């Protein structure tokens, strides 16, 4: 019953190929090839400085790539009103005018956006009992985030890019923010990429994962499929070269008696000496974060000694 039934094949909302961004000598992102299908909530996960914000800014058309290609709903991200009308981008610092009220922002948005749905902001904020007439600077941090999200949704974007939207919020505000987000996705026609370093939130809300570390993509795909492909193997310390040959070893921990390996399976693990168990998203993310570069098979045999 735990078969992973594929969601019907959806068109890609985002497709990048070999995407890279260099700032002078510093490489912020390199060789980034990902696909995010339509209608998903994708978690963009990685340590600080991994290139998450750079990727979001590239997708939002706020900066130009130095290498590679990307399309968002078939169009190339750029500073063009027609493209930008379909993109909602919420930056980490919650860019609102602190002295203006939510109602003022709704009015401003109506002037600046072609498909503006100001009424949706009033409905959403009223349901959350957030006052529309108070300066947003006097609201709590959680309320401000919700105002910003409701305003971003009023653009009726097809792609919503959120940069660490819940990092600074307390658990209740985080839950409310994510409920607002998932409700908008449930209404249809919206794809979301959400950067975060909080794996627990991602596990709950997201069904797709893009994992960056050291400016490179480590993992990209449906979360359940990724979890099903990986296993933790625990066994006696012995020759593990057969496993290393048949599967992709992501992480190995050796003690004098025992070997623990997180592997990406290529077929079933048949060695009866090893006990296989499922991995959690957190274990998976941490294992890949521990890597500096995508593992090449040649390097793997040299991890630890094989005796």
């Amino acid at each position, binding site marked *: 019953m735990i078969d992973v039934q594929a*969601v019907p094949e959806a068109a890609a909302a985002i497709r990048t190929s070999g995407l890279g961004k260099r700032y002078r000598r510093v490489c912020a992102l390199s060789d980034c090839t990902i696909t995010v299908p339509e209608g998903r909530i994708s978690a963009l996960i990685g340590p600080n400085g991994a290139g998450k914000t750079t990727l979001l800014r590239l997708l939002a058309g706020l900066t130009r790539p130095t290498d590679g290609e990307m399309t968002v709903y078939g169009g190339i991200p750029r500073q063009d009103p027609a493209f930008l009308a379909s993109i909602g981008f919420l930056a980490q610092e919650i860019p609102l005018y602190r002295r203006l009220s939510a109602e003022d922002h709704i009015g401003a948005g109506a002037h600046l956006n072609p498909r503006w749905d100001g009424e949706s902001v009033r409905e959403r904020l009223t349901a959350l009992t957030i006052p529309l007439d108070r300066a947003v600077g006097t609201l709590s941090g959680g309320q401000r985030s919700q105002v910003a999200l409701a305003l971003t949704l009023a653009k009726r974007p097809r792609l919503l890019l959120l940069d660490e939207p819940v990092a600074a919020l307390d658990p209740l505000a985080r839950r409310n923010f994510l409920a607002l987000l998932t409700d908008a996705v*449930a209404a249809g026609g919206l794809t979301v990429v959400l950067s975060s370093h909080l794996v*627990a939130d991602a596990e*709950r809300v997201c069904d797709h994962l893009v994992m960056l570390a050291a400016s490179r993509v480590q993992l990209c795909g449906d979360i359940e499929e990724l979890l099903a492909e990986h296993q933790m193997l625990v066994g006696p310390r012995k020759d593990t070269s057969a496993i290393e040959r048949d599967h992709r070893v992501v992480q190995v921990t050796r003690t004098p008696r025992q070997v623990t390996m997180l592997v990406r399976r290529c077929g079933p693990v048949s060695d009866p000496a090893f006990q296989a168990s499922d991995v959690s998203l957190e274990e998976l993310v941490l294992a890949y974060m521990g890597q500096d570069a995508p593992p090449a098979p040649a390097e793997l045999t040299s991890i630890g000694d094989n005796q």
Partner: protein
Amino acid sequence: MISFRVDGRSVAPPYLQIVQQVKQALRMGVLDVGDKLPTVREVVAATAINPNTVLKAYRDLERDGLVEARAGHGTFVRHRPPGPPPGTHSRLGRSLARWVAEARAAGLDDESMESLLRVALRAETEEEIA
């Protein structure tokens, strides 16, 4: 109408937790044939989980023949899962609760009770095999 609880720490993926909670509600008699399940948006608003997860859980239940989606109306219970009638669980639950009270009065802690139950389950399975 029932509400779902999705535990991020559970080993079971969220969609499976929903499937299990619907089946559990059917076994306990909380849900009955003809009852309506909450809509995807209601579940999402209450739990902040991914809407595709709820859809996947409902599709799973539909494939098992337990529920049916009626376009524009929602998802309704069609069958109860195979097993004893709803009263059985609560009756056995009550007798188990009496046993737990007795064990607690005798000074057993939760852990000893759990291991007793495990031993009893195992002994019973072995008898079946033998």
